[in-house]
Each structure stands twice: as structure tokens, then as C-alpha cells.
């Protein structure tokens, strides 16, 4: 009477299994050894992330669908997961020193990072609406908690609460949209939706798509659903903001790309207008709203909104070339963001962390290494050749022009020029202003992260081929 049950092959989900089992083991260790186990749990969390990365790299190429086609392991998923794992691991490195100084050494922090990373990998591989929502909730719920991890600090609690309430609202919109799409397509699976629509859009599907896009735009913090970003980045502890700006953005972007490209390939014209609008609005807001900022974390929040807009230019093209641009953009964006936040974490005098831009005045005289590295990262964020940021923008704009979206590309270049103002202003403050009180020396971990990201950015033009060709193959796996 029972339906025949075939044990699913677990090979394709080995990285996720490693993270899930690892997180459970870490919870046990933490619970048994008490509050003093932060160092041990943190070290083991690295091991878990490294094992997951190893399992990911060891996976054979090709596309595998498991769990009744709701979990897709393909080239696109593998490269995005690799970027997300890298972002999480580096965010964990950046956090150690800060948490010790601020007396936040709680063993739950690395565990929540591991669980959030698991959620991201589930989002990236999600091939139907239910899997997408579950991955998204796992990642978001862990993120809400770590935003408020400094619970005795009013601003950290406010950041967590704000993030939670707005996140719940956006999840509601996503679910409402999903229910409409399900109602009209009759299936939750992405390829199934594409097959059911047969390139024909109906009013109900469009409406569902609008609500789904609203939910997704919140998760990638694109305008007009970006309001939480500056407040959360400013209020949350700095390493938490570094984490939010890097890995979850990559995962949410991957999820957005997959749902648009795989589930709605026949109605590109319908969703392109939404993506183009979100993209232009994000680029413009990122460029103009950042100008007046004095707090560097707020500035980076607006900068990240702008960068999401640039990455969406590639998605708006709706072609394999565009998706290739998005992957390259997100990879380079993560490296630049982690470098920037390592610098921000280095802005410390004794035991106090400072975060206004004026504190950087005259940095070139007191700490030349930090100043030159930050200078390179800022030029790259602006998109000045031959730094990596230029190539990131080049690939998305090239895809947009190829898809005949000339206006979008022109607006992108113009906002990129506007954003140069506030990036270069920081360079001016660092190199030409009267020195402020100097910072304490950088810790070895920060120094390593800054050095590696700066070298990667500065020398990317020598060997862009590995990343670009990997991204190219990954992008084609979606079509």
C-alpha cells in the first residue's frame, strides 16, 4: 500500500549536509561547555565551512536535480555557493577581534553564521517556490538574531527589530506572490512554471510576479525596498554588517536570477520592466543618497544599494551574457566589500571603534598601508580601470548594450560617475586633510584580509580568465 520509496542520492547535497550536521554538533559542544566555548566553537565553525567548501569543489560537473526536482545542483549554484562560503568565512575572520573587545564572545554567533550560510546555499539551489522560501527564512531568521546580538546596545536591538519586522513584511509579500503564481501556473517548480506559462503571461501571473519581485528586492536591498539597509548596517555590530553586505547579498541575487531566468524565461518582456526600474532606482539612490553621509557604515550601506543596482543591469539583459555579468559582479563586489569592512574594523583607537569619515583624515601619514589599500578599494568601487571594479561594471554594461538596453547602460554609467564623488572624497580626506588622532595598529587577521583583497582587486586585470570563464560556464548552465 505504501508508495515505493527510493533513498535519494545524498552526494549532491553533501556541502549542505556538512553544514547542517556541523551546526548541530557545534550547538551540542556549546551547550555542554557553556559560555567559555566561543574560541573552540569559532574554530570548529571554520572547519565546518572549509569542509563544506571542499565538498562543493569535489562535486562533479553537470546538473543534478534531487528531492523531487526541488533542489538543483548546477554550475551556477556551485559558483554562487563558493562565493557565499568565502564571504561567510571571511566575515567570521573579521569578527573575532571585534567580539572579544566588545565582550560579545558568545558561542551562538559562529553557529548562527553557519546556519545562515546553510540557508543561503539552500536559496541558491532552490528550484521551486517552497524550497526557495524555506532557504530564505533560514537565512533571514539567523540574520535577524545576529543583527541584535549586541542586545544591551539600543542601536543593535533597534537594528534587529527593524530588520525583523520589515523582513517579515517582505516574506509575506513573497508568499502572497508565490501563491498567485502557484494558483495560475498550477505548480511550484520553476521549470514547471515555465512550461505551464508557455511564454504567455496572464494578469494573475504578472501580479504574482510583482509581489515576488517585491519580496526579492527587499532581500537584495534594492530600491524601493531598501529602507532597512542603512539603519541595520549602522546599528548592527560592524562585523555583522560586513557579513550582511557580502554573502547574503550574493545568495539573494543568485535566487533572484534563478527565479527570473528559470521560471519566467518566456515572459522576459514583462519582468524586464520591473528589473530595469529597480536597477535604475537603486543606482540613482545609491549615488545620490550616499553623498551626504558622515558615517562610513551608512555610506557603505548606500554604496551596496548602488552596487545591487549595477548587478541588476546584467539581469535586466536576461541573456547568458547578462547572468555571466551578474556572477562576475557579485564575486568582485564581495571581495571589495570585505576589504572595505576590514578597513572599517581597523578604525580603532585603543578599545573604541570609530566610524565617521572624518576620523580617516590624514590616514596616509599615520598608516600608509591602510590608506593606500583603502584608496585602491575605493577606486575599484568607483569602477576605474584597471582595477577589478571596472571589469565588474564592464561585463554588466556590455550585456545590457548587447540586449539593446542603451538607456539603462547610459544611466548606469552616469550614476557611476556621480558615485565617484563620495568615494574620491574619502580618498581626498585620507591623503590631503590634516591628520586626526591616529588609529591603533591593525591586527594580523585584518591586515591579511586587507592585503589579499587589495592584491586581488589590483591584479585582477592580469588574469581575469579563470573567474570570467567559470562564470560563463555557470551562466550557460541556467539556459
Amino acid at each position, binding site marked *: 500500500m505504501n508508495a515505493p520509496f527510493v533513498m535519494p542520492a545524498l552526494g549532491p547535497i553533501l556541502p549542505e549536509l556538512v553544514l547542517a550536521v556541523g551546526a548541530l554538533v557545534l550547538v551540542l559542544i556549546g551547550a555542554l561547555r557553556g559560555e567559555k566555548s566561543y574560541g573552540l566553537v569559532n574554530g570548529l565553525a571554520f572547519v565546518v565551512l572549509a569542509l563544506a567548501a571542499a565538498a562543493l569543489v569535489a562535486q562533479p560537473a553537470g546538473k543534478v536535480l534531487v528531492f*523531487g526536482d526541488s533542489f538543483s545542483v548546477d554550475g551556477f549554484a556551485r559558483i554562487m555557493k563558493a562565493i557565499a562560503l568565502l564571504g561567510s568565512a571571511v566575515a567570521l575572520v573579521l569578527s573575532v577581534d571585534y567580539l572579544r573587545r566588545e565582550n560579545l564572545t558568545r558561542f551562538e554567533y559562529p553557529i*548562527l553564521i553557519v546556519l545562515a550560510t546553510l540557508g543561503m546555499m539552500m536559496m541558491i539551489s532552490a528550484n521551486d517556490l517552497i524550497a526557495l522560501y*524555506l*532557504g530564505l527564512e533560514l537565512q533571514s531568521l539567523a540574520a535577524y*538574531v545576529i543583527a541584535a546580538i549586541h542586545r544591551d546596545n539600543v542601536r543593535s536591538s533597534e537594528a534587529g527589530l527593524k530588520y525583523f519586522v520589515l523582513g517579515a513584511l517582505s516574506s509575506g509579500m513573497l508568499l502572497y506572490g508565490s501563491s498567485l503564481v502557484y494558483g495560475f501556473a498550477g505548480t511550484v517548480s520553476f521549470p514547471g512554471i515555465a512550461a505551464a506559462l508557455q511564454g504567455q503571461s496572464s494578469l494573475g501571473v504578472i501580479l504574482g510576479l510583482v509581489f515576488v519581485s517585491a519580496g526579492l528586492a527587499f532581500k537584495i536591498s534594492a530600491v524601493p525596498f531598501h529602507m532597512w539597509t542603512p539603519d541595520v548596517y549602522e546599528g548592527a555590530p560592524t562585523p555583522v554588517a560586513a557579513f550582511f553586505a557580502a554573502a547574503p547579498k550574493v545568495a539573494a541575487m543568485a535566487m533572484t536570477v534563478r527565479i527570473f531566468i528559470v521560471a519566467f524565461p518566456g515572459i522576459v518582456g514583462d519582468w524586464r520592466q520591473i528589473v530595469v526600474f529597480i536597477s535604475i532606482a537603486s543606482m540613482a539612490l545609491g549615488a545620490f543618497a550616499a553623498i551626504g553621509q558622515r558615517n562610513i557604515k551608512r555610506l557603505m550601506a548606500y554604496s551596496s544599494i548602488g552596487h545591487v543596482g549595477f548587478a541588476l543591469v546584467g539581469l535586466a539583459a536576461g541573456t547568458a551574457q547578462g547572468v555571466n555579468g551578474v556572477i562576475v559582479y557579485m564575486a568582485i563586489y564581495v571581495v571589495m566589500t570585505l576589504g572595505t569592512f576590514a578597513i572599517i574594523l581597523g578604525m580603532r583607537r585603543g578599545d573604541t571603534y570609530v566610524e565617521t569619515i572624518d576620523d580617516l583624515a590624514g590616514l596616509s601619514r599615520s598608516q600608509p598601508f591602510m590608506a593606500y589599500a583603502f584608496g585602491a578599494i575605493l577606486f575599484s568601487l568607483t569602477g576605474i580601470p584597471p582595477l577589478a571594479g571596472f571589469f565588474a561594471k564592464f561585463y554588466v554594461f556590455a550585456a545590457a548594450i548587447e540586449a539593446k538596453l542603451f538607456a539603462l547602460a547610459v544611466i548606469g554609467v552616469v550614476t557611476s560617475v556621480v558615485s565617484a564623488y563620495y568615494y574620491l572624497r574619502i580618498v581626498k580626506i585620507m591623503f590631503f586633510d590634516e591628520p586626526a588622532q591616529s588609529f591603533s595598529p591593525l591586527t594580523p587577521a585584518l591586515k591579511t584580509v586587507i592585503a589579499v583583497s587589495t592584491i586581488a582587486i589590483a591584479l585582477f586585470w592580469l588574469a581575469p580568465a579563470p573567474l570570467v570563464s567559470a562564470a560563463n560556464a555557470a551562466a550557460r548552465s541556467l539556459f
Partner: protein
Amino acid sequence: MSAVAAFFYLFSAVAVASAFMVVVSRNPVYSVLFLILAFVNAAGLFLLMGAEFLAMILVVVYVGAVAVLFLFVVMMLDVDFSELRQGFINYLPVGAMVGIALLVEIVLVVGTWTISPDLIRAPAPGAATAAAISNTEAIGQVLYTRYIYFFQAAGLILLVAMIGAIVLTLRERPGVKRQDIGAQVARTKATAMEVRKVASGAGLEG
């Protein structure tokens, strides 16, 4: 009118009326009680559709756990609801606009919604027919097999919720006397009792 239809109208009317009362009643405790009534009627509607598993889960989870939790929160926190309603008139135009926009959207969607005639002629075969297998059994057959991934993912989400609640609210308070069962059990006659010779007429305090 058949009995099923009569019950359908009874349950729906009570559900809608009590949902309305949840919003308008002045006393928050009454609101929660009306909410429970709405849940019970929704469970009745599920029963009419033959979804007895969902009906029972609704009663157990929503009435048994969620609504009682609401009741505790409402009774224990001193929330001044009349104060919360003060901005109501100010926000009414915006709220009404959003509400009307959503209503128009739903009307448009329902207006375009048609059931393909093919589907009516040949209904899709379900997991199992109602005569052969109850729907509790049907859910049981797929929950741990076809949907194992979703089931486990939901479990991890609950784990995160639990860790989060502990991280954000648990505080070790110093100076609180706690029961130490190990120490209690380990007491022996020697550590618990003391025999003293007390001279007659003199107290212990000497």
C-alpha cells in the same frame, strides 16, 4: 438546502463575524477569544471539505497553542490599546488606499481566472482516492519521503528560532539561589547533622 450547505453558511458566517469582532472589540481579551472562535469555525470549514487532518491541526496548533499564547501576552503585558488606536484616523487614508489597490488587484485577478475546460472533463488523479485512504495517511506517506527536504529544512528553521530566542533573552542572573540536586543528594548524615551536648538551663547561643 442540504445539511452540508447549511453548515457551510453557518461556519462561514460565524467565522466572518468573529473575525470582524477581533478587530473592533474594545477589550483585547475579547479579541483573542473571538480569534479562537474564528479558528474553530475555519476548522469546521476544513472538515466540510474532507480535510480532517488540517482541521484537527488547526484546532491543536492555533487554538491550543498560538491563541493561548496570545491570551497570556495580552493579559500579562499592560498594552494600552486605546493609545495604539490614536493614530488610526491619520493613517486611515493611506491604509484605505493600499486596501483598495489590493482589492482591485484581487478583483482583476479573479476576473481573469478561468478553469480550463480540459481540467473539468478529466480531473487530475490525486495522490489516492478518498475512499481508499484517509488524507492523514496520504500526508503521512509523502511527508517523510517526497517532502523530506522541506520537512528537515523547516526543522532547521525552528532550531534557529530556538537558538535566537535563547541568545536574545536568556540572562544569567547572579545572586539567585538555585536548587542543586546533586549537592542535596550528596549530603550525608555527617554533613547534615550535628549533635551537641546542651547544658541544662543554658541555650545553644551560650
